């Protein structure tokens, strides 16, 4: 019964949000004189042939992987009350340097892959550490420094790309670093489709999905099950109480930003190691900002972030088929923004409801009669409970 109730209240918020987002989107589509049901059909229409359908799944998953990592990176910092708006710059720096370093060395395959990943995580962590160090030593707000560092990363990565790390020949329209050798590439997961008897999609499913899963589980365990995670969350809930409990708040800022940055360093790798094999001027930017939305939508829990990333990816996939149906792709962005807003509003309503219920339960529990029987006309415990239930109904 309590389980049912918990599931009920967990689903309540998303349900309201979906309805709300649906209403807004319907209005928007009606405004341009198209049929909203077309949009719905397109959203769920993955194609006619089995290969197209599995391809749609690949597209969604491949988009979800970096979004998930971005959300994860943001959420780790959020969990201790830090706003890491600098994920954008962290993954850009990490990707360009990992691409450069990965192309420069030759190692046996598994080592090479590990090497690229480690370089990316180190660079991401380093870039985030600047924010942390400025915060703990100079009191610079992490919001300002990470906004500024995003721009600094943009320029620095560009300089690295056009200068020391340039791999493409003069005159090529797209400037890139040198390609990662075969040993540094991450194998795809298309074997899975054969295993479960689905048609082979056109594209390759990022093998990095596995790394993302591992990262998600690791972060989840770290946050929920370890002392360190407890310290981190405690600091996020109340920095003053955490300090009084013996947590070194400055150290936590540094460690948390290091972890957040290290995870951020992974964001660019699915594409780098599974698709393009180089960093270039056509690098996919903006995932850091989307990551903030994904983290917030997923309520900063790894599982929630996974769902949020899948939802965003699912909507992103529809951008192309929607255009076939003469509905502009900007509708997708509008749906995404609306959903974020709707979900948080719904969450807030749900939170207030549960909190009220929790207080109701405490009210009940706290009211039993005291040790000595009441004297005077004061109400009995029983009558109080009755009243309470009456009031609650």
């Amino acid at each position, binding site marked *: 019964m309590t389980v049912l109730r918990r599931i009920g209240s967990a689903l309540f918020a998303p349900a309201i949000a979906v309805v709300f987002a649906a209403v807004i989107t319907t209005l928007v589509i009606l405004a341009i004189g198209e049929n909203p049901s077309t949009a719905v059909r397109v959203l769920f229409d993955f*194609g006619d042939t089995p290969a*197209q359908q599995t*391809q749609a799944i690949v*597209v969604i998953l491949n*988009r979800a992987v970096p979004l998930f990592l971005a959300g994860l990176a943001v959420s780790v910092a959020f969990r201790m009350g830090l706003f890491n708006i600098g994920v954008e710059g962290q993954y850009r720096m990490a990707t360009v340097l990992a691409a450069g370093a990965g192309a420069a060395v030759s190692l046996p395959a598994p080592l090479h892959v590990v090497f690229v990943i480690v370089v990316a995580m180190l660079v991401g962590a380093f870039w985030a550490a600047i924010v942390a160090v400025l915060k703990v030593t100079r009191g610079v707000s992490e919001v300002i420094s990470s906004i500024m560092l995003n721009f600094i990363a*943009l*320029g620095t*990565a*560009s*300089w690295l*790309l*056009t200068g020391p790390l340039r791999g493409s020949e*003069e*005159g*090529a*329209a*797209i*400037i*890139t670093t040198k390609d990662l050798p075969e040993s540094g590439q991450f194998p795809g997961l298309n074997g899975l489709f054969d295993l479960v008897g689905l048609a082979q999609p*056109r*594209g390759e499913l990022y093998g990095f999905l596995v790394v993302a899963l591992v990262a998600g589980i690791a972060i989840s365990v770290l946050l929920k099950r370890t002392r360190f995670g407890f310290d981190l969350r405690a600091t996020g809930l109340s920095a003053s109480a955490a300090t009084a409990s013996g947590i070194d708040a400055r150290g936590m800022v540094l460690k948390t930003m290091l972890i957040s940055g290290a995870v951020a360093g992974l964001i660019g790798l699915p594409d780098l190691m599974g698709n*393009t094999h180089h960093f*270039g*001027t*056509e*690098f*996919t*930017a*903006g*995932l850091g900002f989307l990551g903030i939305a994904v983290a917030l939508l997923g309520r900063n829990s790894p599982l929630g972030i996974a769902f949020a990333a899948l939802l965003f990816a699912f909507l*992103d*996939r529809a*951008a*192309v*088929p929607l*255009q*076939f149906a003469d509905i502009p*792709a900007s509708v*997708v*962005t509008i749906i995404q923004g609306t959903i974020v807003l709707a979900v948080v509003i719904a969450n807030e309503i749900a939170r207030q409801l549960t909190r009220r219920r929790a207080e109701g339960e405490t009210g009940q529990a706290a009211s039993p009669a005291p040790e000595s029987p009441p004297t005077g006309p004061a109400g009995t415990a029983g009558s109080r409970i009755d009243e309470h239930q009456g009031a609650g109904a």
Partner: protein
Amino acid sequence: SDEDDNGSSASGGSDGELKIGVAYDTGGRGDKSFNDSAIAGVEAAVDELGGEIEELSPNDDGSNREELLTQLADAGYNPVIAVGFAYGDIIGDIAAEYPDTEFAIVDTSVEELGADNLTGLVFAEEEGSFLAGVAAASKSVTGHIGFVGGSQSPLIEKFEAGYVAGAQAVKPDIIVDVTYLSPAGDPSGFGDPEGGKVAAQGMYQAGADIVFHAAGGSGEGVFEAAVEAGQRAIGVDSDQYLTASPDQQAVIMTSMLKRVDNAVETFVTDFAEGDLEGGTDILNDLSTEGVGLSDSGGYIDDINDVLEDFRQQIIDGDIEVPTSP
């Protein structure tokens, strides 16, 4: 159903109705720049030959470009035209995957990709820019001109190189200020009119009297700076005089034309008539009138001879125009 039709018609051409797929660069239709220019070419061809057009834009971060092309091909569109060099990274693989669909890509050479069903529509921007440089140097009173580039990519550096060479061909000691609004890999320089204005203002205040921009939407800012300074500017890609407000028309001396529309129209027509070679680049340069200068407003009519002279020398190969600064 129509997939089969197109599958069989792909190699040859004109039996069945034309279904043309266009995949834009970010910004999409209505950018007043090469996306618009490309679709104008397609529409001109369709006016002539009949047929239907499907246009798709990528999302803001450009991460779904591959999907655009494959879904167009899957839906039976043929030919499929990719607008912008951003598709250069992926189009080779996709062309190989859809051997029955003809692809074209604007601004990227496909010679080395080795796909028979892929045509590169490339332009000698440096040649047109050279003429823009000649015009600027000939008209400059102060012996000081400027160039504002959007993002510092090799493509935009071609404009710069040609422009500087052209100016120096007329006045060897001319001063050319060069500014890029954003570094390579940061496309914001194409959509930053404020930056364009500030950069151009700086040049005008330093004594330049003509500024050429290859900065997409930031060019609006360059024109605004010219209007405020009472100096002149040179537009890019299309004849920007035609779409400018009246006070801007007074300062847009000429535009360096890059006839994406012509190139695309020719490509579609060739495809429809089965004349397509495939696997090669179609170079649009001065000789094919793929690039050139506009003369709306009549501001450069007086130096027509000079321009014609240089044009001929380039076409004849007497002048080798550099492609990078």
